[in-house]
């Protein structure tokens, strides 16, 4: 069953077409990787889905309901949660408060003890429960990443968008991170993840979509994609002889 | 009737434009929203009167002294007061608020000094006060001079900005300060120059207003408001825009005063101002 459907999504910035007529579907419960070199339009596409940017044209639906044309907060309330490529935490709020926000303002609109317990669960899941009262500004980078994931989880989302959530982690942390994401898919959340760390993509995603210069150049199994000459060329270049 | 409105409006608009040029440079290049701008114009106005009445220096000659003095004062203000705020804010965007609050303090400071030094009296001089016939409309010579100063200063400024290397540097910093160091421009230095140049223009504006208008030490905020309105209308940092917006505002005010109701001139000014802010915050003459 298709959860997220993207058809002919296009985003232009002035003369630049950042996302060019991209279409693909994500089934419920699936975890799908989005690959592509820097600047190929992956983050822009994520922004179109989450409502951070309005699409120039095309249509995006979640479980049949259109997302295009809605504001970010409305989309968030339909059950879409995300992390950001550059970590965005709320430095003046405590960890619990950071994580509570989507629980309070999201689809379920919890408040009081319920919201706190949702936040506590999310923090527990990412391993930050013991620091719940600390200020988010004091966290290390990896903990900030964890916090951001916890915040996305507290939304109890049906669709989770991860934008290079694993970037910048050391090998131990990476292994923990991969295990964490796997535990999420096991609990039934649908995940679309932009990722550069191929080990992680291999480990987590049976299927990937690959973008280059705003276009979708591949939508296939991970094994196929990583040996697809188009994909390799997209990453490493064509090797022009000059 | 229409011609009269046109002539009077342009002359009025010329002085408005002159008033706004400095503020648009200060905010455009140095990113300082200077609420003490009007007080600096007043300071120059008082100094012009002092030079004229106390020392007998003719106002047009006094301008030659006041402009560089204004530059010096701006240089000093930026170095002592603004630069630490700029350094502290980094890219956090708090500079706007900090500069508004700090220059609000400066506003009181200068006003206090003016009150103590020059008293609370209305001040004015009579200088070339006779009427000149322009297309059948009588206009005071001193206002024409102020208009001419505006045209000359405005044109020179536009040309300098458009044609010279220094002007190009100023424009570069105004538009994309983050890129300026890549070509070797010391943003801090250019910002200081821009602020100082803006102060010099404020001084020239104040001095030319002193030639024809009665003023007192508490009038500064009126000048600041007018300049602010024009700067926003013209697009922040846009010198050509400030010139056009100043002229346009003069025309609008004159038109409202003659055709609608003098009681609504200031209301019209602010309504246009707020309208522009909402409809095109980048200014009527801004790009994009």
């Amino acid at each position, binding site marked *: 069953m298709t959860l997220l459907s993207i058809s002919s999504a296009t985003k232009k910035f002035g003369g630049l077409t950042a996302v060019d007529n991209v279409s693909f579907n994500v089934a419920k419960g699936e975890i799908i990787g989005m690959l592509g070199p820097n600047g190929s339009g992956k983050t822009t596409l994520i922004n179109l889905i989450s409502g951070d940017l309005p699409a120039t044209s095309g249509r995006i639906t979640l479980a049949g309901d259109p997302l295009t044309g809605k504001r970010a907060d409305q989309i968030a309330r339909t059950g879409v949660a995300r992390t950001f490529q550059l970590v965005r935490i709320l430095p003046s709020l405590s960890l619990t408060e950071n994580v509570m926000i989507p629980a309070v303002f999201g689809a379920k609109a919890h408040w009081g003890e319920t919201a706190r317990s949702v936040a506590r669960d999310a923090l527990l899941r990412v391993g930050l429960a013991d620091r719940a009262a600390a200020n988010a500004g004091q966290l290390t980078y990896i903990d900030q990443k964890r916090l951001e994931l916890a915040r996305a989880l507290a939304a109890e989302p049906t669709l989770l968008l991860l934008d290079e959530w694993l970037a910048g982690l050391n090998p131990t942390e990476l292994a923990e991170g991969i295990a964490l994401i796997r535990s999420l898919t096991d609990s039934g959340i649908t995940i679309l993840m932009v990722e550069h760390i191929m080990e992680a993509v291999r480990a987590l995603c049976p299927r990937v979509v690959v973008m280059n210069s705003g276009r979708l150049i591949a939508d296939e199994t991970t094994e196929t994609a990583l040996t697809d000459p188009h994909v390799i060329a997209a990453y490493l270049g064509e090797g022009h002889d000059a | 009737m229409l011609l*009269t*409105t046109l002539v*009077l*409006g342009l*002359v*009025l608009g010329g002085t408005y434009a002159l008033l706004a040029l400095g503020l648009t440079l200060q905010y455009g290049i140095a990113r300082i929203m200077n609420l003490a701008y009007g007080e600096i114009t007043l300071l120059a106005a008082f100094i012009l*009167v*002092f030079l004229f*009445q*106390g020392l007998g220096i003719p106002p047009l000659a006094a301008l030659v002294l006041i402009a560089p003095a204004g530059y010096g004062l701006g240089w000093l203000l930026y170095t002592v007061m603004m630069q630490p705020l700029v350094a502290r804010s980094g890219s956090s965007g708090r500079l706007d608020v900090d500069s508004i609050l700090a220059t609000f303090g400066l506003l009181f400071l200068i*006003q*206090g000094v003016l*009150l*103590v*030094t*020059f*008293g*609370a*009296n*209305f*001040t*004015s001089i*009579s200088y070339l*006060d*006779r*009427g000149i016939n322009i297309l059948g*409309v*009588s*206009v*005071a*010579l*001193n*206002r024409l001079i102020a208009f001419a100063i505006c045209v000359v200063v405005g044109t020179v400024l536009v040309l300098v900005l458009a044609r010279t290397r220094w002007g190009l540097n100023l424009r570069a910093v105004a538009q994309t300060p983050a890129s300026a160091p890549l070509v070797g421009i010391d943003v801090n230095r250019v910002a200081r120059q821009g602020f100082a140049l803006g102060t010099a223009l404020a001084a020239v504006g104040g001095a030319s207003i002193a030639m*024809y*208008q*009665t*003023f*007192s*030490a*508490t*009038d500064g905020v*009126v000048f600041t408001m007018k300049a602010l309105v024009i700067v926003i209308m013209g697009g922040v940092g846009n010198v050509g825009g400030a010139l056009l917006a100043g002229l346009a505002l003069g025309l609008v*005010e*004159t038109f409202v*005063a*003659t055709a609608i*109701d*003098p*009681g609504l*001139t*200031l*209301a019209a000014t602010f309504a246009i101002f707020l309208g522009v802010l909402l409809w095109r915050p980048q200014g009527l003459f801004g790009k994009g």
Partner: protein
Amino acid sequence: MTDYNRRATLRAFSLGLAAALSVSASVAEAADDTVTIGYAVARTGPNATGAGITTIPNYELWVKTVNEAGGLAMPDGTKRMIEVVEYDDRSSNEDLVRAIERLASQDKVDIILPPWGTGSNLAIAPLMDRFGYLQLGVTNVTDKAPEFVERWPRSFWMLGGGHDYASGLVEMLSAAHDAGIINNEVAVVSVADGFGIDLINGARPAFEEAGFELVYDESYPLGTSDFAAIMNEAQNSGADSFVAFSYPPGSFGMTKTAQSMGFNPKVFFIGVGGAFPIFPGIADGKADGVLAIGGVNADSGAIQEYFARHTEVVGNPPDSWASAITYASLEMLEQAIAKVGVDNDALAEELNSGIFDTIIGEVKLEDNQLRDLWWVGQWQDGAFKGVNPADKEGAADPDIPKPEW
């Protein structure tokens, strides 16, 4: 030519400083052999200009004069020096109200002198009444004075109301019209605040009744600095008489604009500021013939002496409208104290019933109001002289039409 004289302002400043410094001393001693007089007047903000010309210099001049003469004479024949407690109301009514409370309940001064401006005086009237102080209001123009006297029996209103000035002006213009000097068309502008509105509301029916036609009648907002368009309209209206119920910036701006554009109506009347000593300078020496609110009996020896002393002590001459009345009000106070002491109730009674000899002549108040006032004055031979009421002692004949600029 000059309104600005550095040495003079500096002197005025040091005078003020001396007064300010005496504050602490006076409060500390507050002995029986002094009379403490307090006031809160605008030294900063928009009201500072008006207060700085009309109110503060006269308070300071009077205190200095009295103290140099050995102090205020008391009913028992002794003399008591004046000590001053002075605050800045920052042109804000809130601060003013608090300053009055301070003078009354903290400093416990004997007399409180009023602030500058109609709004300020009204703002403190209930307080002054409650604290039992008399309020010797001078710089207010209001038609409601009789009503206010009823409400606050110790309040005094010494500058008339808008209707008075408007009728005075209309009376004078009617005479000129009857003499065939001017046509029946009037161009009138008024500043959009309480003062301007009061005057124009009084003037409209008065003009109409006298057979004048208001061919141009507009108000302009406070803060207007450009009058070219207004003056141009007035000039094109064809009226022989130009009347402006204006404040100093407007009065000055209109004068300069009229001069530069060669607008020469037969009657050129302006509001506040026309009687200021700096006006001839503003008018580039061509003030003669300009009509304005107020006036003094310029031929009176007492007035001439007052002008000379004011110029000497303060550094510049007083204005020719409210200054002399302000000073006269203080003289009245001085004489009343000599009779009944510093009890405010007795003083109020005495002020209303007594006859006083002041620089503006013999003064007798009617129902707490000074009614014997100059409504219209005119610059003649470099002096601002009262011309209406025409039957008032010392009235000069109005010079109409005004000579061209």
